């Protein structure tokens, strides 16, 4: 490389940083930077009326799993916390599974339409995706309520005699999350299926494979990256969900997101809230790393 080319190269790199600077500054000040404050707060003492007091303490982190016994000062497992974590994990896994089970045929259907119709079907999936999450959650409330659509139809058909009480509980949260996060499963699945060479199917059938065998041995392995991407995209926001459990859980059936909020509100335990936030962040980052490693390995093997 000539010195002139070298200088040119250094200049374009400097330009790259200068041009990216406004975005980087904004994101540091109002997104990534404050996360460090949360990390620091998770190691401080809790203030009496919320906030924190300066002094190192592991109480916040310990408080995730343990609580002080009311009678003596020994630490015992906090059952209430474990219930909330288990509910969050269980509902998130269930949501991921069911969105896959119904999302895969949907993505397949879209990908096998003629090109013009495909754009329209895709647009129909995208509209709910961009529609206000709160409105969509409220729409589910409208459908599940005692006098709602589901009960009205079931009553009319004579399947039930008294309206079902479906709202405000894990079931309603599960239905709500499935509804709001479904597009996040369909879109990456569609992207994977769209790249799939349909001639492989005919090859499979020509070799006397059954439909189930073709699905299991030909289709699923090839669209695997889409499955992993969709699962992460659904699982991560489900685990951190706040709006859906608040609107459909009725306040008592909390998930991690609401539990974190509680610590900054009535709970007045900012260190615990901070430690919970950091723990949630770690879980999400691990999930993303697994995805990145998986995606890279897929690429490496062609």
């Amino acid at each position, binding site marked *: 490389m000539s010195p002139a080319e070298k200088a040119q190269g250094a200049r374009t790199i400097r330009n790259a940083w200068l041009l990216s600077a406004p975005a980087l500054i904004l994101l540091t000040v109002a997104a990534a930077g404050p996360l460090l404050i949360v990390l620091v707060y998770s190691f401080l003492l809790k203030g009496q009326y919320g906030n924190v007091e300066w002094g190192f303490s592991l109480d916040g982190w310990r408080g995730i799993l343990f609580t002080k016994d009311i009678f003596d000062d020994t630490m015992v497992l906090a059952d209430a916390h474990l219930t909330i974590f288990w509910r969050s994990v269980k509902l998130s896994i269930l949501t991921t599974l069911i969105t896959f089970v119904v999302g895969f045929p949907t993505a397949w259907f879209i990908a096998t339409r003629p090109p013009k119709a495909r754009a329209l079907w895709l647009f129909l999936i995208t509209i709910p995706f961009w529609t206000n999450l709160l409105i969509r959650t409220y*729409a589910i409330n409208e459908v599940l309520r005692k006098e709602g659509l589901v009960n009205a139809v079931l009553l009319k058909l004579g399947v039930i005699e008294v309206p079902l009480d479906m709202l405000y509980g894990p079931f309603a949260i599960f239905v709500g999350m499935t509804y709001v996060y479904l597009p996040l499963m369909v879109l990456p699945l569609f992207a994977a299926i769209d790249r799939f060479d349909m001639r492989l199917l005919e090859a499979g059938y020509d070799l006397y494979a059954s439909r189930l065998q073709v699905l299991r041995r030909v289709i699923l392995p090839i669209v695997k990256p889409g499955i992993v991407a969709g699962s992460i995209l659904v699982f991560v926001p489900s685990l*951190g969900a*706040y709006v859906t459990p608040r609107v459909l859980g009725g306040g008592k059936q909390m998930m991690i997101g609401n539990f974190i909020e509680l610590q900054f509100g009535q709970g007045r335990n900012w260190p615990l809230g901070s430690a919970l936030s950091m723990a*949630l962040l770690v879980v999400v980052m691990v999930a993303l790393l697994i995805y990145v490693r998986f995606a890279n390995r897929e690429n490496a093997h062609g």
Partner: protein
Amino acid sequence: MARQSFSAVRLPGFTTTAVLVFLALYVPIFTLVAYSFNASQSVAVWGGFSLDWYAKAWANTQVKEATLRSLLIAVSASAIATAAATMAALGTTRRKAFRGQTFIYVMINQPLMVPEIVTAVALLIFFAAIKVATGYQGLGYLILAHSAFCIPFAYLPIRARLEGMDLSLETAAADLYATPWQTFRRVTLPLLGPGIIAGAMLAFVISLDDVVITEFVKSGGQDTLPTYMLGQMRRQLTPEINAISTMLLMLTVAILTAFFLLTRKND
């Protein structure tokens, strides 16, 4: 009737499932819209067609103020985010890989990876300290927070557009003695235009829809339309919420349709 011929791409039950999924996606939204025209006081009982709830929402000063606040924040934040994202896209695309590039990508996409509740809590703590230190309680915090999380949504379409752009036009301009600024102003920017508009629209919709971060960052009396609605959902529900939702829904669908047509034409 003849039996349908064997088709390799058809899988049993898939089309039925897909049709049911599309129904399940749209029926709740249509139910919500339908009940906004309900004459009855309750969200539960159908009492005939009426536009009363729209009139009521329109006359509600809290709704009006929240709407204006939402629009002000969304316009400011999407403008700031789009400007920052355009510059970042120009800086990071169409050049050789360099050290720190991954860092820039991770930073820009960071709002897509970190759970919203975690960012919300972080901003609550951070801005609470600044509010105490400076005494400033205004909308600036919300605009700043929204600008930050809108950046990746503005960045992606702009970057996609840049990557698909033909370099030869810019080279031609430079060959004809255009200065770098002239080339940018007269060639690059007009070509990039649809990408920038698409990015700005996505950023606008994302800002307009945000609930969680806004709920944690806002000071007293700074409700946006979504946080106002969230607050109302704790109380006795009236079809007024449906009317507000429907109006917000219409706005989103209008913007998305424009986005759809805009990006499709360029293919």
